[in-house]
């Protein structure tokens, strides 16, 4: 048993994780005719909590409760993986990425996330404004405008051979490249790195 725990505690390679994620598509389809998509959960939260008479939030969200339970499960899964089968070693990322990130002010590379960014102490600072408030807003606004995120478009959409999803995925990547290569450096120095 301990050997098993040690074995699954290592970081999982892409060729294990990718197919497992891909299998979510047929699993959801076959157990309940559900289309895989995560960003929709954000819309359901709006529809339940602050519909404000907006037509976009007037739909039968009770039918979509499964989606909220799914994302709640993702949160619990994150807890289980981190507390019971976490990797005892530091994350291994590409040396070049480390060098590039060091150059824009990141110094800690031990955990899954840079603790100098993802810390409550940054909440009411320019760092918090950029990484939590602004970043989160773009994710929520952009995914809904695009009609899906990495799961709904890149995985579910392309898996069912829908070209609008391929197009959306291409623009997800373009947005990410523009942010990483053109805007990230200036923004990081602006927020005090």
């Amino acid at each position: 048993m301990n050997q098993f725990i040690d074995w699954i505690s290592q970081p999982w390679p892409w060729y294990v994780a990718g197919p497992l994620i891909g299998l979510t598509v047929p699993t959801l389809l076959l157990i309940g005719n559900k289309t895989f998509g995560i960003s929709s959960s954000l819309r359901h939260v709006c529809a339940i909590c602050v519909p404000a008479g907006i037509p976009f939030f007037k739909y039968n969200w009770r039918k979509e409760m499964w989606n909220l339970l799914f994302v709640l499960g993702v949160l619990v899964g994150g807890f289980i993986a981190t507390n019971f089968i976490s990797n005892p070693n530091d994350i291994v990322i590409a040396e070049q990425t480390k060098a590039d990130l060091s150059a824009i002010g990141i110094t800690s590379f031990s955990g899954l996330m840079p603790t100098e960014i993802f810390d409550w102490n940054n909440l009411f600072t320019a760092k918090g404004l950029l990484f939590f408030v602004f970043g989160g807003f773009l994710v929520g606004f952009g995914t809904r405008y695009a009609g899906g995120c990495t799961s709904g478009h890149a995985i579910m959409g392309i898996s069912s051979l829908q070209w609008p999803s391929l197009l959306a995925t291409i623009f997800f990547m373009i947005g990410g490249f523009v942010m990483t290569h053109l805007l990230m450096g200036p923004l990081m120095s602006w927020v005090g790195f």
Partner: protein
Amino acid sequence: MITVEKERPVEVCDAPNSQENLEKGLSLLKYMIIGVLFGIVFVKAEIISWFRIQEMFRLQSFHMYGVIGSAIITGIISIQIIKRFGIKTISGEKVNIPNKEFRKGQIIGGFIFGLGWAITGACPGPLFAQIGSGFTVVFVTLLSAIAGTWVYGRFSHKMPN
């Protein structure tokens, strides 16, 4: 056979539930269990890591491309099998995959999401897993993403679609 539907009115959400019989109570728990497994994979493959997303956008590691690519290939094969053999859902319904129609939002919204993805190091799924992993401040990011979704809903009729 998979039935393909024409464009749905906007009041039907993306990634909709096509099941005819509404499930209630405990039968919904199975989705939570799948979510738990999914969240574990997210953490164990380090997909929720801000560093991994930086690696991906800097083209310095194959990891994320391998994950997404092999997930898509698995998805394509699975859907083809469901289609070819006419596999039904466990409650005997026809599998339904709604069509995604082209909209300008896939370009503009997609680009905006990409910007946010590189900043937060997370698409919506990993946001939940990051919170569960103890990066509780990401809850603020999640609230902001919900606010972004709301603002889109509020002004969507005024934006190019």
